[in-house]
């Protein structure tokens, strides 16, 4: 056992994948000599040579499209988008080509590629460095969307993403890059499509993922002091989605809050809330609530703590789950009369 950060785990997953499969290539902006701005590719060029890990011109659509072309000759590219919002120039390549290629060629052309996206906030980043862009990818059929919250998952899910026959958008919560765990690598955790119960509870289910998992766990501890026994589910993979684990939990607890740092409107949290409602309506003691980022552009660093769903906002949501059977009129429009 040794203490390993999520950044170390990701780096080791890339190393082990490169060593095991000669078709695995890592490329992107500053990933070579520098080792990436977050050092996730640290030492790969030095240890495996420029053939296996290399810098590209600064053009995200180019990087993703070039990776697609390399897949046609049997390579398995792992590309890095330097930051969430800097991946937007590649969006057309991702949505119109990467996501659709298997489908439009009836399975003749497959794209075993991984697009790594450092995402979300909480690191004091200036604008365009803190977006939670997972919703765009999750809304696009043909992409798997994966986001680890622990070093063990970071290693295991990235290995699985690289081995996957289909394109995976691998969303790395920047705020957790330096989170640590005592761990022996290689580590294998649950496969894609399986959520993890991070904390068992009986009264409320918090469904969350990526950067919000530690916050949800802290909120669960604080809730315990208030007398609520809270279960925390980490989705791990948004696509494929694990309805089963979520439904089993909510049917048991009868209450659910979805916690996500992304803006709430039209996002992944809303999808989760809808799925839970569709499947657990008769088990629910209260409406499913969302605690998300605010519906504003991600703010300047000095205001991000107000934007981010924190322990207090999660506790407030838990408190609103109609424990006394009182209707919740907090919502915009909830006071309207029929």
């Amino acid at each position: 056992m040794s203490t390993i950060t999520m950044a170390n785990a990701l780096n080791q997953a890339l190393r082990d994948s490169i060593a095991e499969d000669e078709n695995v290539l890592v490329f992107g902006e500053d990933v070579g000599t520098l080792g990436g701005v977050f050092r996730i590719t640290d030492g790969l060029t030095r240890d495996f040579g420029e053939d296996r890990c290399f810098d590209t011109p600064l053009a995200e659509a180019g990087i993703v499209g070039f990776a697609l072309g390399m897949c046609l000759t049997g390579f398995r590219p792992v590309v890095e988008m330097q930051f969430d919002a800097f991946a937007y120039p590649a969006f057309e390549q991702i949505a119109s080509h990467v996501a659709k290629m298997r489908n439009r060629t009836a399975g003749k052309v497959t794209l075993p590629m991984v697009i790594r996206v450092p995402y979300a906030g909480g690191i004091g980043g200036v604008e365009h460095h803190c977006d939670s862009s997972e919703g765009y990818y999750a809304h696009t059929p043909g992409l798997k969307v994966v986001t680890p919250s622990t070093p063990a998952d970071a290693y295991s899910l990235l290995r699985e993403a690289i081995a996957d026959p289909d394109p995976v958008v691998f969303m790395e919560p920047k705020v957790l890059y330096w989170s640590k765990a005592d761990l022996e690598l290689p580590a294998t955790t649950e496969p894609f499509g399986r959520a993890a119960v991070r904390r068992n509870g009986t009264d409320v289910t918090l469904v969350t993922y990526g950067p919000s998992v530690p916050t949800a766990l802290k909120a669960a501890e604080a809730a315990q002091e208030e007398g609520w026994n809270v279960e925390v589910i980490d989705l791990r993979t948004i696509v494929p989605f694990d309805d089963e684990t979520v439904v089993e939990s909510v049917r048991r607890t009868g209450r659910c809050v979805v916690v996500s740092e992304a803006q709430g409107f039209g996002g992944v949290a809303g999808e989760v809330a809808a799925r839970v409602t569709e499947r657990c309506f008769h088990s629910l003691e209260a409406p499913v609530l969302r605690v998300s980022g605010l519906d504003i552009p991600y703010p300047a660093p000095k205001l991000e703590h107000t934007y981010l769903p924190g322990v207090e906002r999660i506790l407030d949501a838990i408190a609103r789950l109609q424990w006394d059977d009182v209707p919740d009129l907090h919502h915009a429009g909830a006071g309207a009369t029929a």
Partner: protein
Amino acid sequence: METTLAPGGVAAHLLPSPRPVQLLDPDGSLAEQPTDAHHYELPSAERLLHVWRGMVIGRRLDVQSTALTKQGRLAVYPGSRGQEACQVGAVQAITERDWMFPTYRESVALFTRGVDPVEALTLLRGDAHCGYDPIAHKTAPQCTPLSTQLVHAAGAAHGEKRRGSDAVALAFIGDGATSEGDFHEALNFAAVFSAPVIFFVQNNKYAISVPLAKQSKAPALAYKGIGYGIRSEQIDGNDPAAVLAVMDAAVEHARGGNGPFLIEAHTYRMDAHTNADDASRYRTADEVSAWLAKDPLSRLQTYLTAGGHLDDAGVRDAEQEAEERAADLRDRMNAEPQVDPMSLFDHVFAEPTPQQQEQRAMVQAELHAESEEQA
């Protein structure tokens, strides 16, 4: 920083000929040739005959496809009548081991490539997004978003090089698409990685309705290459001999490890953008007739006939094959394609997600109920 100097100025070896390369003039006579680096040898009569025959067949199938659209057999058809020298000549200059990246307008290039015309037209008939096997033909699906396929071509060409192969990639685009960002990213990536790609711009003068003057202030689109360090050439795209000769040079350049090559072929789309377009709104009949006088097919036919390489029997033979292939296309396109709604879920992922399985079951139940009602 030192710049690379060549005789004639900074990086002049990358610059295109100031006038489009032309070996055969519109009358089918040999054009006067420069003696500088932009001098190209006339391809052999045998190869020119092969291009001519491909153009006869390609044009017939193109005309047939337009007719099928009018009969409602194709959802839409972007014709390429007038651009056959580009599509046939460029494709005949590469081999089966090379890659091709077509756009939606490259039906004739696909026919030339050996893709079954029915498979080439499947996208436009509307029964599937791609009717042919892109791996078997080393030909990417016809690309509808503009210029996005060029970066794929750069990646595939780089991949081939990494594998130790000398295969090149031929990537087609039109004049309008040179304004798209991916065109520039592709040129830059290909140059930086010295990827063997031939970027073949068919400048047919209009992006649907917008004329080139509103698209670019470049002296010619071929001048866009020098900024990326890419050797470039502009050609008379209605001169099949020039297309073949410059493509040969481009293939040799790319195959020889010298990186990408950019060709701008000046041509003209004789028909509207598609059957849904009305070209009379943006161009005059006089302009169209002026281009008719530069027709690539009659130009080459005149040259080959005058040189004794082609006689009436040869013309009849090619026209007969073209008619037979058009009839075959017509017959097969008139058969109603069988499309299976249950195939919708087959190729999203290697393994469908639980959510897709659930939706699949729903669709299956709907179809079952429908067939019960009909029974």
